[in-house]
């Protein structure tokens, strides 16, 4: 099948993708930086501008298609994954980007989310996780930490949250990455990796809702604490982080552990080396589950495993059936099997 990545570079710039519509997110909302990053990535992919489709569900993040000058469809709550799947299967040439939030894809669209991960169409899913319902003004979401006081959990939420990465891998997803909305460079790089991965690429963006859940990712993103709480994963590299890159992650028996190089005889050789292409998702799940304060949050591409896409398999089957089917036209089909003629 034809690759969506064209080798002849098209002369596109950010401007080609900026829409003339007023961007109506709150000032200070993390979504602005995400939009910028996407506008950075699109012209760099070697894809014609008319081949991009931006798809969304409902929520603050889901207004995204209106802010991009591409083909776009703003769907209904939770169903963007189904829309995107239909678009991609119907026309595999398109570069399909799905924009969703933690309410949209972890709650009402949870079913479609796990199935898009399992089915593996070649689409890019940007999951804006601000751990709150923003557009309905501040109710807890399926990623809101237990105990959080919100408008619908005034005594503190009683519910255990999802970790999107763990869910993706539980659903046998092949690509999962995580970024922070405070780092445009990181987002640009990782979105680009997601675009290049063939299959459902799910990127969790730790996004800040400045109004209803300000600084929810503060430990990970704030200037003071981020060095100790961000581990940017790179394929083939040992997992190191910290102000002086002095800390690392080791696999101790069946669990991960933070260590300091030089202490207790630990050297760099003891550290886990990141392998996003490992088919077995065990360590990837453990990485996705690392959270401060005990662990740094794993960022970058946590998992990226090659697998055939659903649309590839479907259209290969179409080609095969065209060759082997006895029916070359619908007339052949109508006249097949038991028929009789009246003269």
């Amino acid at each position, binding site marked *: 099948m034809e690759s969506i990545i064209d080798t002849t570079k098209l002369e596109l710039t950010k401007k080609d993708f900026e*829409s003339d*519509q007023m961007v109506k997110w709150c000032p200070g909302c993390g979504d602005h930086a995400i939009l910028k990053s996407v506008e950075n990535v699109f012209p760099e992919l070697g894809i*014609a*501008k*008319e*081949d991009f*489709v931006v*798809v*969304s569900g*409902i929520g603050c993040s889901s207004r995204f*298609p*209106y802010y991009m*000058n*591409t*083909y*776009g*469809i*703003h*769907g*209904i709550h939770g*169903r963007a*994954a*189904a*829309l*995107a*799947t*239909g*678009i*991609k*299967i*119907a*026309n595999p*040439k*398109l570069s399909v980007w799905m924009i969703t939030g933690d309410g949209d894809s972890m709650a009402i669209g949870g*079913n*479609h989310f796990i*199935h898009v991960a399992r089915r593996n169409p070649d689409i890019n899913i940007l999951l804006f996780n601000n751990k709150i319902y923003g557009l309905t003004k501040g109710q807890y979401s399926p990623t809101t930490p237990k105990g959080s006081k919100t408008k619908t959990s005034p005594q503190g939420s009683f519910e255990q949250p999802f970790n999107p990465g763990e869910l993706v891998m539980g659903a046998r997803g092949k690509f999962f990455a995580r970024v922070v909305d405070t780092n445009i460079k990181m987002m640009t790089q990782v979105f680009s990796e997601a675009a290049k991965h063939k299959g459902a690429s799910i990127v969790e963006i730790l996004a800040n809702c400045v109004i209803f859940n300000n600084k929810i990712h503060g430990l990970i993103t704030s200037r003071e604490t981020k060095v100790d709480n961000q581990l940017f994963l790179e394929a083939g590299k040992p997992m190191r982080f910290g102000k002086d890159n002095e800390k690392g992650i080791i696999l101790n028996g069946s669990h991960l552990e933070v260590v300091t190089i030089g202490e207790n005889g630990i050297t760099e050789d003891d550290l886990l080396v990141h392998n996003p292409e490992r088919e077995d998702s065990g360590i990837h799940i453990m990485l996705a589950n690392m959270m401060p304060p005990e662990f740094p949050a794993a960022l970058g591409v946590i998992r990226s495993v090659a697998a055939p896409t659903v649309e590839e398999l*479907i259209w290969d*089957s*179409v080609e*095969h*059936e*065209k060759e*082997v*089917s006895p*029916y*070359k*036209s*619908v*007339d052949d*089909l*109508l*006249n097949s*099997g*038991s*028929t*009789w*003629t*009246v*003269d």
Partner: protein
Amino acid sequence: MTEVKNKIIELKNAVIRFAGDSGDGMQLTGNLFSDSTAFAGNDFATFPDYPAEIRAPQGTVAGVSGFQIHFGSNDIHTSGDLADVLVAMNPASLKANMNWITKDAIIIVDNDAFTEKNITKAGYEDNPLSDGSLNGHLVVNGPIATLTKNAVSELDIDNKSAQKSKNMFALGMIFYMFNRDFTKTFSFFENKFKSKPLVVEANKLVLKAGYHYADTIEAFVNTYKIDPAPLNKGTYRNVTGNLATSWGLLAAAERSGLKLFIGSYPITPATEILQELAKHKQFSAISLQAEDEIAGIVSTLGASFAGALPVTSTSGPGLSLKSEALGLAVMTELPLVVVDVQRGGPSTGLPTKSEQSDLYQALFGRNGEAPLIVLAASSPSDCFYSAFEAVKLSVEHMTPVILLTDGSLANGSEVFKIPKVSDLPKIYPPIVKENDPDFQSYKRDEKKLSRPWAIPGTKGLRHRIGGLEKENITGNVSHSPENHELMSRLREEKVERVSNFIVNQDIIGDHDADTLVVSWGGTHGVMLTAVEQLLDEGHSIALAHFKHIKPLPKNAEELFSRYEKILVCEINLGQFVNYLRMRLPQFTYKQYNKIQGLPFTVAELKKEFIALLNE
């Protein structure tokens, strides 16, 4: 004994009902008889009657599976009210079907199955074969199981396998009764069991044994012959409604140049449509078995945006789940065909029984002002043409269409004259060419009010659509009060203008009658038969059977104005009649309704019509 035995009596038509335990292969038996009926040149219609459970407890009334065929030398429009011949493979199937046979029906039973245990299981106190309850019937009471075993005694086959053929023994008896030829059935065995020559041989032997048994014991006083029906020149086949629907969709894909996409979720009685379309990737027809009903319709709408011919299939409860996405289709003004194979509701209701009770849901079941086209297929073979038209209207008018069929149509079968696809109308999708300088996403066609279909991947047409209200012409998001009213009216008007593109409503029967009976959808066959019989009997009556529900045909008003008495008949509590009362309130409508999960019978309709005629 005199020589009059085995007189061949000519009949105009007959109804046979095959009934047995759900594992007894009665559907296959019925289908094989249908094939031989086609071969004999009769017109026919069939209907399966099977339990909701795949294998309900053996020997119980709940586990009875039936298949009815009505065949004749005249035009056959229904699967028949009551059976003239009942094949009952066990006591439960006799018990379950006694209400569905004529007073003097011939009953063929497997005596071997009438054990004390089975008789009790069926809920009989005494053996119905000997307690006099079958008086008035000719009961042909053969030890079918034993005779089946004997028939294959020469073959190296165990009795358990041999017993699987006992339905063929009964079929053989029926073949004798109706002077049928084995050819078609033998070639079926040869095809179906290609890799199992022993099974082919066993079935052939048993079928023949049944035939000869009926002959030898002089089972029937007479045998019967039904002349070929006067069918027009052409090639024919047997189709069920679900098969015809699937093929109509494929034909429409070919005539539109679009690639079909069906995103769907299995649900009784619509599943066969997804199954059938999944077989035809050679036509670039793509099927996606979605994770739920919602993903079924939404993935289809995505495919529609991407330029495919979009279809989703469902039944009542599934249509409920699809409501919100239907609203999105109305708002985005994209093509989308939803086939709703209606079943008894509400909720899970009667999954294997038929009803016409989704009409309100199809017309009104969405938030906001959300008009769309509603069509209703009238017979199994009409499902082909209705599906084709649903696509044509949806694509050319850029609007969702709900096509209502029902369980009776879906599973019932009839003779279908095979059309040539090139004789079907061409379908013209309003696809915008690249870099069209006049393109605006909500600029409408003057006549149809449809918006253009600008497919992602086309140069120079990038645009955004979605569920938020759109500004007329530009398609930008708009919250303007005036624009919302304008758009609401335009969407309604767009659907109503479809009446300029559909055929006028026709009238069957006596155009000068005072009395008009009205129906819609799957009741066509039984309504037509009742009216034809009354006309033959000298009554003056007319029938208007609707396929176009929204919009109504343009002449509906003029047509109703010609009749003094109007009676609307439906398998629900009056959904179409109330819609007519809303749309054309100047007329007085009487209503006749039945809601038992069963079709109308010709007899009950005639009784009702005669009462009305005499009023």
